[in-house]
């Protein structure tokens, strides 16, 4: 067997961390069930996202991907009839279940949505927003963390001369990176992303993907995506979900991204990723 052929194949699909053992989980669910009224949206989901790595959640529409992500930072708590059972574990400890714990929880978990949602305020105030929730700052104290967050989100050079202007005036891609900067400003341990690039053009998408790779090691990222190529490009671990009996979302298989896209263990995963499903 000519060795160079095999090595070439492997290096083409191997993301940065393949082969290294994965760090311990930052976010875990154990036997997580979720209901909207009588409808069970998640059934016995054991999900795990390793610390400082990118974990992608893929699966057909309606399989519970968004519900899982929203369960993690309790976005669904106010949805009438919504309830969960099972455990959510953050960095080894049970996540707070009481309503008062939500603010603290979200301090550790930022979120990026499908459509960028900058607040109707200046670029600067958008980024400073989370910091101001913690305590009163003088404007001069905020300049440095705001600049740092915008730099990390790859936006500083583009907005440094228009910090006072409305965030809504930016392009779609810039708005999404502004939202990313807003999340990063409070230095969260985890950023959840629910289809973060589906409303963006390919160039803006690539910028966001590049940023995700840059944050590796510092932030744990969990991304829901319909785009399997995106999951393959950006993630270290991929989890595949699909609807089980009664249309409840189940986690079928979770593995290193290279393994999952090369040798899926479950036939259903293989059918889905090779486009032969449904």
């Amino acid at each position, binding site marked *: *067997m*000519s060795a160079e*052929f*095999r090595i070439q*194949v492997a290096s083409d699909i191997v993301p940065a961390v393949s082969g290294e053992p994965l760090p311990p989980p930052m976010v875990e669910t154990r036997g997580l069930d979720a209901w909207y009224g009588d409808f069970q949206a998640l059934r016995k989901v054991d999900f795990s996202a390793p610390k400082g790595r990118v974990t992608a959640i893929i699966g057909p529409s309606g399989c519970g991907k968004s519900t899982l992500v929203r369960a993690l930072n309790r976005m669904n708590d106010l949805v009438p009839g919504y309830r969960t059972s099972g455990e959510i574990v953050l960095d080894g400890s049970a996540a707070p279940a009481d309503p008062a714990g939500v603010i603290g929880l979200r301090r550790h978990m930022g979120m990026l949505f499908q459509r960028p949602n900058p607040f109707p305020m200046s670029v600067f105030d958008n980024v400073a927003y989370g910091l101001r929730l913690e305590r009163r700052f003088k404007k001069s104290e905020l300049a440095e963390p705001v600049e740092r967050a915008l730099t990390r989100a790859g936006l500083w050079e583009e907005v440094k001369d228009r910090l006072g202007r409305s965030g809504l005036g930016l392009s779609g891609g810039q708005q999404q990176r502004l939202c990313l900067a807003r999340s990063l400003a409070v230095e969260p341990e985890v950023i959840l992303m629910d289809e973060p690039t589906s409303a963006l053009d390919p160039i803006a998408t690539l910028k966001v993907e590049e940023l995700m790779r840059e944050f590796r090691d510092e932030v744990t990222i969990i991304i829901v995506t319909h785009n*399997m*190529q995106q999951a*393959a490009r950006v993630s270290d671990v991929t989890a595949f979900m*699909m*609807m*089980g*009996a009664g249309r409840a979302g189940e986690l079928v298989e979770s593995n290193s991204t290279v393994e999952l*896209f*090369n*040798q*899926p263990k479950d*036939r*259903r995963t*293989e*059918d*889905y*990723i*090779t*486009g*032969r*499903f*449904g």
Partner: protein
Amino acid sequence: MEPLAHPHRPSLETEQRRVRDLVLEMGEMVDIAIHHATRALVDRDVELAGAVIAGDHVVNARQAEVHEHCLSVILTQAPVARDLREILGFLHMSDELERMGDHCVNIARIARNLSDLPPLGAPVDLPILSRTVAAQVRDMLNALVARDIDRAREIAARDDRVDRIYHRMVDDILQLMVGDSRNVYPGTQLILVSMNLERIADRVTNLAEDLVFLETGSVEELG
């Protein structure tokens, strides 16, 4: 929920079938080229040797076609998992078969060079090596059609037998060369022929490894 049991990617699958058929066609051409090159040598048939040399461009053209199709499938269909391995596996097989074709051309060239010389003083059983190698190629093509990895592993394991025949033949030829210096030039040429046949058999082992990779996703060192 059970996955639906029907294929959904007709364009991808049509392309995959096309690539597989091209590779099988290359395999058949190589099989014939081994027979013809050996017969040209044994029968001192210059015309047949010329036909093997001239026919190699068809094998090369098929390889180029395989490359073109594989590239287009990767660009347009973004295959993953088994689909990707299938394309990469056949792509590599086409390279191996193209090189096998080159080995046959080498043998045919030697057949042409030796056609004016008298035969060696004693018989050298070249046809048995040639037949064994051609059988390896043919069996491997059948294993490929049947997607039978156990058979592929067996075929790779039989490469030892080819090696034994090859070494024995080289020993025999060396003896003839030691015994009579007029045998040195044709003897050297025949050793080159056996080496080319032995290399073809090695590449059959590579094809077996490709089939195992294609079917299982694992890289196995066979032979």
